[in-house]
Each structure stands twice: as structure tokens, then as C-alpha cells.
């Protein structure tokens, strides 16, 4: 349903997201994880066509039969809010402070052709559906009269109003109280159609998603089914991330990742993680590709993908027997993968 190929995002000549590809089937739930600064929000915003001024996206992205990148705003705005929706990180500022909540929910429906009266009625139904108490009364409230959790539910109601096929959630619970987070997550997983869920919280991803993409330095460094990636991380970054969140299999506690995420445009060439990676070698100065090794039956004698023989394949040359990586199967971009 959603297919992204070679998505690259630039600002002022700096690449913030580099060559990201993945796809999403109808009803599928995919997590996009990484530290802040890894480019995950920009990836989502570029799909919605909501990048900040001066930031541009190239590549290919299709939702059903419609292109999302490189098309004029007029084409895109017909899709936004109807076939794909987004819930943002900061509920406190995402609603117009001068407009009643119900009107803000109704707006997204009138914009896509529903008559005003009907939209107002349905707005109340939607507020009820996201489990807001006394929806009819709450529809007349202004955003500042609602708590953060309630505002985020309103945002979710807006996102669901036109029955979109794809819901993008960008850290929807990060700004909320811990007690409210769980309720919000349960609600999202209950109502979401296909879901692209962005977070830095691995535990949240584990409870919400079937598949994950791990981003670092604007690249997808590892992807695959949640269970495989989380139980057997191959990329050293994923490994560190999991170690830091103590979700590793017992007995294999690993040190927390050294250093901090560099500023945009200041990632090293080659493997973007190599300046923080304890396993980095000169090989890592060439860029590793996201590849899907044939884990099922590796041919004996074949070089492991992360272990090229000296003077062996030029960087970027695919390792044997792998299809175009789409994130469906376990894939990673590392010269020295963990076993």
C-alpha cells in the first residue's frame, strides 16, 4: 500500500535522510525507531508533504496509486487527512487555541467534502470513539481546557475522521504523563489502520508493531520482523540501543552506546555509526549497504556479508542471493554484524 524508495531529505545542502526504502502492507504496523536526530520524523513528514521550509525530499513514495514526492501541494492535500493522517508529538501546541475542539475535528471532514452539519455530529461520535468523556460537551471546549492526553485523543480523532488507510504517529505519547501513555497506546493499536509508528522507545515499539526499521544518521541501518530484530540484532547500533534499553536476551548485557548523536551533516562518511562503534575498523570507512543475508541456508564458504575478504567486493556490491531490501525480511547495513 505504501512504498518508499530512495527517500532522501536535504536542507541547505546537508543530507538529513539518505536513501531510505521500505514498504507497508494494508493493516500492517511498522515501527520506525532511533534516537532524536536520526531522521525518523523527517521521513514521516516528507511522506505527508509537511517538511519545514527549506527542507526538500527526493526519491519515490507511493500511497496506493498516488505519488507522494515531487507532486504539487494541490494534489497532495487531497490525500492528507483523508487517505493518510498523522498524529504529532506535541499535543499542547498542535491544536488551534482559538477554535473549539469539535469544530477542529469537523473541519477535517468538511475539507474533504462532508456537509457541515453531518461533520459536526460525526465529530462528537469520533470524540466518543477516542474515549473522551462527555463528548458533546467537550466538543464545545477550547484546547486549553483539555489535558495533554485529552488533546492527543482529539488529534487522534482528527486523524481517524475520514477513515484513512495509513496512520502515521510521531512519538504520540512522548509528551504525555506515564500513566496516560499506556491508555493512549492501547487506543492507537485498537483503532489504527496501517500504522507507521515513530518512537525512540523500544518497549513501546515492542508492544505496538510487527516490524521495525532502525534509523541512525538519516539511514535505515537495520530492519525486519520485530521479533528477529529485537532478539537477534545484527547492526552494532541496534545492539547498543537494545542494550541501553535492557531488552536484550538475558546474560548478554552490553555497554551503553558511547558518545552522542552528531549534529546533522556531521556524521562520518562510510558507516555513519563508526565513530561511536566499538567494533569499527578501516573497512567501515566505506559505506555498508542494507542487505538481507540468506540466513536460512548460508552457502558454506560464502563470505558473511559483514566480513568481506581483503580486497574483495567493492562497497555497495550486493552480497549474494538477496532481493531488493524492503524491510520485509531481516536486513542490516554493517560490516561487522553481531551474531
Amino acid at each position, binding site marked *: 500500500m505504501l512504498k518508499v524508495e530512495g527517500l532522501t531529505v536535504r536542507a541547505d545542502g546537508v543530507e538529513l535522510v539518505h536513501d531510505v526504502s521500505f514498504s507497508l502492507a494494508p493493516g500492517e504496523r511498522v515501527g520506525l525507531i532511533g534516537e532524536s536526530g536520526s531522521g525518523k520524523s523527517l521521513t514521516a513528514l516528507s511522506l505527508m508533504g509537511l517538511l519545514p521550509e527549506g527542507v526538500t525530499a527526493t526519491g519515490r513514495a507511493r500511497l496506493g496509486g498516488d505519488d507522494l514526492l515531487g507532486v504539487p501541494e494541490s494534489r497532495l492535500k487531497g490525500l492528507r*487527512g483523508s487517505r493518510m493522517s498523522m498524529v504529532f508529538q506535541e499535543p499542547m501546541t*498542535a*491544536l488551534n487555541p482559538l477554535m473549539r475542539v469539535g469544530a477542529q475535528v469537523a473541519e477535517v471532514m468538511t475539507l474533504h467534502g462532508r456537509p457541515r452539519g453531518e461533520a459536526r455530529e460525526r465529530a462528537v461520535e469520533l470524540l466518543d470513539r477516542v474515549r473522551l468523556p462527555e463528548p458533546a460537551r*467537550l466538543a464545545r471546549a477550547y484546547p486549553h*481546557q483539555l489535558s495533554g492526553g485529552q488533546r492527543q485523543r482529539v488529534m487522534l480523532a482528527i486523524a481517524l475522521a475520514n477513515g484513512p488507510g495509513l496512520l502515521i504517529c510521531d512519538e504520540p505519547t512522548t509528551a504525555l504523563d506515564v500513566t496516560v501513555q499506556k491508555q493512549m497506546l492501547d487506543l492507537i493499536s485498537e483503532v489504527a489502520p496501517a500504522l507507521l509508528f515513530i518512537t525512540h522507545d523500544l518497549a513501546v515499539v515492542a508492544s505496538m508493531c510487527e516490524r521495525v526499521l532502525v534509523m541512525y544518521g538519516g539511514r535505515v541501518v537495520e530492519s525486519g520482523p520485530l521479533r528477529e530484530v529485537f532478539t537477534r540484532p545484527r547492526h552494532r547500533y541496534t545492539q547498543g540501543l537494545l542494550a541501553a534499553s535492557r531488552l536484550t536476551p538475558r546474560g548478554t548485557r552490553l555497554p551503553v552506546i558511547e558518545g552522542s548523536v552528531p549534529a546533522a551533516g556531521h556524521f562520518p562518511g562510510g558507516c555513519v555509526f563508526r565513530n561511536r562503534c566499538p567494533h569499527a575498523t578501516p573497512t567501515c570507512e566505506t559505506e555498508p549497504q542494507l542487505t538481507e543475508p540468506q540466513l536460512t541456508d548460508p552457502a558454506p564458504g560464502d563470505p558473511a556479508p559483514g566480513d568481506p575478504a581483503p580486497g574483495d567486493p567493492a562497497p555497495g556490491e550486493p552480497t549474494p542471493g538477496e532481493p531488493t531490501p524492503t524491510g520485509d525480511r531481516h536486513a542490516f547495513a554493517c560490516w561487522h554484524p553481531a551474531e
Partner: protein
Amino acid sequence: MTPPNPGPAGAAAPYLVKRVAVLLASTAVAAVAVFAFMALLPGDPAEIALGVNATPEAVAELRRQFGTDRPPAVRFLDWFGGLLQGDFGTSYVTSAPIGPQIADRLGVTVVLVAGGMAVALALAVPLGTFAAVHHRNPLGAAISAVSQIGIAVPAFLAGILLVFVFAVRAQALPSGGYVPLADGPGEWLRHLLMPWLSLGLVQGAVLTRYVRSAVLDVMREDYLRTARAKGRGSTGALWRHGLRNASIPVVTVLGLQLATLLIGAVVVERVFVLPGLGDLLLSGVAGRDLLLVQGVVMVLVAAVLLINFVVDVAYHLLDPRLR
């Protein structure tokens, strides 16, 4: 999770009562200040009126006539009580009642200020919004630069420049003077056009920068992104969700500007020889007619306070967060 209390929409009433009380109180305090300054500090009006050679008896008699022999508190209450009924007292110099003079002149000043504000708004809102939306391209930057220069020109200088262009060179408009509306709207308009422009162009330049800044701020707000995520284009989002939000800070500035315009009008009236309050004030000073000056100053200060009041109330109506 407790349900919020949206509250009735008409909750502004207690606020309004409170704000009116503040307005009245601050007007009264301002009156005390003006009175203390103008009526207590300078010399004795009776002595001034009679000159240095007057007999003490004559001075005492005139003092009794003026009422300045009474204690200051009584004189203040008398004056302030009169003000509340529109009676500004009688001039010590010309023996003419002051209230009617002020009433005569007030109309001209109000027309001048209103027209200036209209020019400023008509200029600033479209230009400021345009400059904000196009802040990355040269035309937007050019608007900012021109407005920066406009701010540096005082209204009376703008007036002189306009006179030079339209009266001296083009000879299209009169260089000054005033024709009442009753004597013909065409002439009335011709005489007011340049005063309006000289007030409005300068304040418009100032306002343009504020409008630009307010719109720029709003353009960065998350709710505008939400509106676009709903399927609005960026222009549509700005119209529907941005402008009202941007108008809140602009209203504050409008209040400040109205006060500035009122004072600027005093100077512009002098440039264009318009018979407004400023002209009355200055002629009062020139004739050492202190009670007249006191009255006009009080009217102008009260007007500034009233403008502040209107701004506060407008603010309250615009922003539900304050209710």
C-alpha cells in the same frame, strides 16, 4: 480523566466590570496627577493675570473669583466633578468656557487619527502578511527594508515631504488648512488626504513589521502544520487558522499605535494648520492658559487610557484562554 469545564461563553461579564473599574480608577489617578502638576506647581494665576503692579486686594479678589483661594483638594474635586459633567472650567486668560472649545476641536483630531489608522492598516496588513509569507524571497525582504526606513521618518517630516511633492511640485493638493465636512466633502477630503497619509504611512511602516513578525510566528506554529495535515494548503491554513491568532499580538500594537497617532496628530496638525486638539493645546501653552492646557492634556490622557481599555477588552474577546 476528569471532563473539562468548557464554561459558558459569556463569562466575560465579570471581567468587563473589573476592567471598567480599573479604567475609571486610573482615569481618576491620572486626573490627580495632571491637576497636581498643572494647578499646584505653577505660580498664582491671579498674579499672572494682573501683572506685577496689582494691589494685593485686587489679586485676592481675582483669586476669589477664580476660586484659587480654596484648598487644593476642594479645587480638585470641583474641577474633576466638572469634568465628569463635561465642564472643563473657564479660562483664566480668555474668560471663555473651555469645554466647548475642546468639543469643537476633538472632532478634527478624531477624524485625523481614524483616517491615519485606516491608512496604516490598509497598508500594513497586506504588506506585512505578504512579507511574512515570502520572507525568503527578495520582494519580502524589500518590504521589510522599506518599512525599516519608513519607521525612521517622523510623521511631521513625512508631512513636509508630502507637501513638497503634492502641493509644491504637483500642486494637486492644498498645503494646509481645514474645510468642515458640511462645506463640501470633496474639499474636506482634499484637505485631509495628506495629513492622513503622513500619519498613516509612518505608522503603517511600523505596523508592517509587527504584522510580518506576528504572521511569521504563527506560520511556525504546530497547529498550522496540523491544519495542513488535515488537507489544507499552506495559504488556506494561514487564512483559516493563522490570521486570527496573528491578530492577537497585532491588536496590542494597534493600541500602542493609536496612542502614538493621537500624539502624532498634535504635531501633524501644526504642519497642516488643522484646528484640532493639538493646535488648541499649543495655543494654550503659547497664551499661558494653564487651565486650558490642563483640560486638553486630561482629554488626551483619558483617550490613551480608553484606548488601552478597548485593547484589553478586544484581547479578551479574541483569546478564549483569557476568559
